[in-house]
């Protein structure tokens, strides 16, 4: 493994953390709409499931390395229904330490020195370091704003077909997609996914589809799995997260689903890196999945009810931001909202640090307004920074009181 790659990687991650948390750590009175995790409680049955699992002797010891049997069986059931195909629980599923661990296993298994991997901007910040750690080269393509549109929704951001096509060549090993997307909240349409699929098939490229926010889909939109498009099952690894599904990010469980000939390599990585994931946590997630499988399609199903709960929060935050004179990008999915801060006309030229505008803005906002967000240029490559530097990202999977506290800050801000 080359140190050159890894040191570049650490610079990226550290930047985001530094911005978001240095001040926060010092000041607990800051309203945190920055890092993407809930401050709302997970469903009580999920916690009870963990307590119950932990009280069983066998559940405190090692389980099957590639995934606890009751969990992979439950996943096979739930996703068999979603995909409309039989999914082999032992050969086509790998349980990992969070969606993050799935991404890592996928990259280490399938990407190597000299490969190129296409990454769509803005992207979840770990993709680039992971591609580099595998010795490959990230190739960026930005989502672009439809011309003449005032940014009001994540659907206004699209991939230029010619531009995308130009990024594929004989060295392209894979393309990474994230739908619903963090941070924009875009949900790729069937046509858009078909366009990507066509290119993957034409160039014999793999697709790594990060779908951790798959259940957080708002009214009028539908999450489509690229793996279900013709010719794509055999070349796609789909990544999901228990943390995002059940609002338990601190459990760090995720899974990869894909064809045996690809999944088996991810399993080899697992065997040589961690060996197995925590047993009681897997058992509890299995129980949660079984419970919700029975409820699928009904309003009580957590996969549906969480999205409904979040849609209300989404709309509330959007209103708060609009009233403060900012321009929110209404997300079709996920639990983040991008905000264009151009109209605030905040002059930060007195800050001479060599940083993008959004970094300066967020630091200033944490310090002066006690409100935390994440700068969006943390999610793009150098060449696209100018395109995104007037955007900041808010997370809205927060208690109403947290959102109202943010609202108060923003209301006072608008007045001043």
């Amino acid at each position, binding site marked *: *493994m080359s*140190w050159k790659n*890894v*040191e570049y*990687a*650490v610079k990226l*991650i550290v930047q985001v953390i530094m911005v978001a948390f240095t001040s926060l750590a010092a000041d607990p009175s800051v309203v945190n709409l920055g*890092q993407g995790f*809930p*401050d709302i*409680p997970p469903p009580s049955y999920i*916690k009870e499931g963990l*307590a119950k699992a*932990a*009280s069983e*002797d*066998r*559940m*405190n*010891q*090692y*389980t099957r390395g590639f995934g606890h049997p009751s969990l992979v069986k439950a996943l096979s059931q739930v996703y068999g229904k979603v995909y409309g195909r039989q999914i082999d629980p032992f050969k086509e599923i790998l349980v990992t*330490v*969070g969606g*993050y*661990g799935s991404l*890592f296993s996928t990259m*280490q*298994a*399938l*990407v*190597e*020195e000299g490969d190129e991997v296409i990454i769509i901007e803005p992207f979840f910040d*770990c993709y680039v*370091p*992971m591609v580099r*750690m*595998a010795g490959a080269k990230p190739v960026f393509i930005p989502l672009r704003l439809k011309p003449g549109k005032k940014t009001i929704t994540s659907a206004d951001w699209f991939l230029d077909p010619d531009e995308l096509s130009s990024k594929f060549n004989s060295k392209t*090993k894979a393309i990474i997609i994230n739908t619903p997307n963090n941070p924009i909240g875009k949900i790729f349409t069937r046509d858009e996914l078909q366009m990507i699929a066509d290119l993957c098939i034409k160039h014999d490229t793999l697709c790594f589809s990060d779908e951790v926010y798959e259940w957080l889909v708002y009214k009028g939109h539908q999450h489509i799995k690229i793996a279900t498009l013709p010719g794509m099952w055999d070349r796609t690894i789909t990544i999901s997260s228990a943390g995002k599904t059940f609002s*338990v*990010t*601190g*459990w*760090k469980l995720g899974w990869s689903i894909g064809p045996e*000939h*690809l999944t088996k*390599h991810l399993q*080899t*990585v697992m*065997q*040589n*890196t*961690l*060996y*197995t*994931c*925590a*047993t*009681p*946590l897997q058992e509890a997630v299995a129980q949660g999945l079984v419970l919700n499988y029975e409820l699928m399609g009904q309003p009580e199903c957590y996969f549906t009810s969480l999205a409904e709960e979040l849609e209300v929060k989404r709309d509330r935050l959007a209103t708060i931001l609009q009233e403060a004179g900012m321009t929110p990008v209404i997300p079709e999915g996920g639990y983040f909202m991008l905000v264009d801060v151009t109209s605030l006309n905040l002059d930060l030229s007195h800050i001479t640090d060599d940083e993008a505008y959004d970094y300066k803005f967020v630091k200033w906002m944490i310090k002066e307004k006690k409100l935390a967000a994440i700068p969006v240029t943390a999610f793009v490559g150098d060449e696209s920074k100018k395109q995104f530097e007037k955007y900041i990202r808010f997370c809205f999977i927060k208690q109403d009181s947290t959102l109202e506290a943010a609202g108060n800050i923003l209301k006072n801000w608008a007045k001043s």
Partner: protein
Amino acid sequence: AKCSQIIKCTLHCAANSIIECFTQLAADYKAVNLGQGFPDFSPPQFIQDAFCKAISGGPQMHQYTRGFGHPPLVKNLAKFFSRIVGHDIDPLEDILVTVGAYQALFCAFQALVDEGDEVIIVEPFFDCYQPMVVMAGGKAVYVPLRPVSGSTVLSSGDWILSAEELASKITSRTKAIVINTPNNPLGKVYKTEELQMIADLCIRHNLLCISDEVYEWLTYDGAKHVKIASLPGMWERTVTIGSAGKTFSATGWKVGWVISSGHLIKHMKTIHQNSIYHCATAAQEAVAHGFEREYEMFGNPESYFKQLPAMLHHKRKKLALCLQSMGLQPIMPEGGYFMITDISSVKVNLNDQSNTDEPFDFRFVKWLIKEKGLATIPVSAFYSPEHRKEFDKYIRFCFVKEDSTLDAAEDILRKWSQQE
């Protein structure tokens, strides 16, 4: 299918899947399982209570915590181990919490081994070290522990590392030496003089030392676990790995850690941040409480770190007597929860013509599972391919099991010896 070069290399490392294979075979034949190394009894009540308390704690118990280690856990680990190592351990700089000791090993090898580096592994070794060295682009170089010639080899203490043989393996490309004390599968607990010999070589040749000490609390008959990191000149070049799973009999929680000098931990943090990033919060909270309790109880008879080895001491004796009565020669482990036994005196027709290429102990273990319903692990799985044939007459038993499991094994062995 196209897979990365790394995977192509590790696929050749058959050893890492051996334990899983034999565990599956044991399950298929419903064998009494003294194979895979985990307790079949529960963790102590206080740690289970701590986990339950964490689960019903505030919402933050179920969300991300600090990536490099939950603050209460790293603080308690620093407090606890500073006292033992004799060095002020910085909780935020000198510790990384990982998903089990397994991931700690992965971070260590990835962070510290570069393309072309050589890593000396003392055999017999826990099977993951070799594939991890290969995955990091390094080359594994082996040096075996050897039973002292001329003595009736009865104890793991009789297996020693030759200073000359070890020194002869060092080249200009050697980056690190990997030791495991107490050792799996042998149970050897390295004495201070032995560690000093290794330390001298590390210092002279500017090598790192990766010290896997997951069984650190399990020592018997007065054997003392010594941390090589506590020897002069070793703190800054030693990476010490520990495991909550082995410490608190909760292998399924997958909480481990690395303790080392900040300048080495820093690189492991980078690997961790770009592979896993966070470990589960509630389990870390529970382990933090476990260490707090043990800090107060240290040296006390109620300390779990005294009670567990005391309980296992009795089981060790029970298993050894049972094997000896069978005419087998167990090697008494000074530490850990495994016991290896010489099976060369066993006369048995293995009836497996198709497998004659496999090492003898592999074939014997399979036969024992299928014909007698007793599962163990072949010890040559813990050796390099080049030394496997030299050490293919031993099998490994795990004794961290309920007495009823050990009794069931005893029944099987007694019936077998009566049939002979």
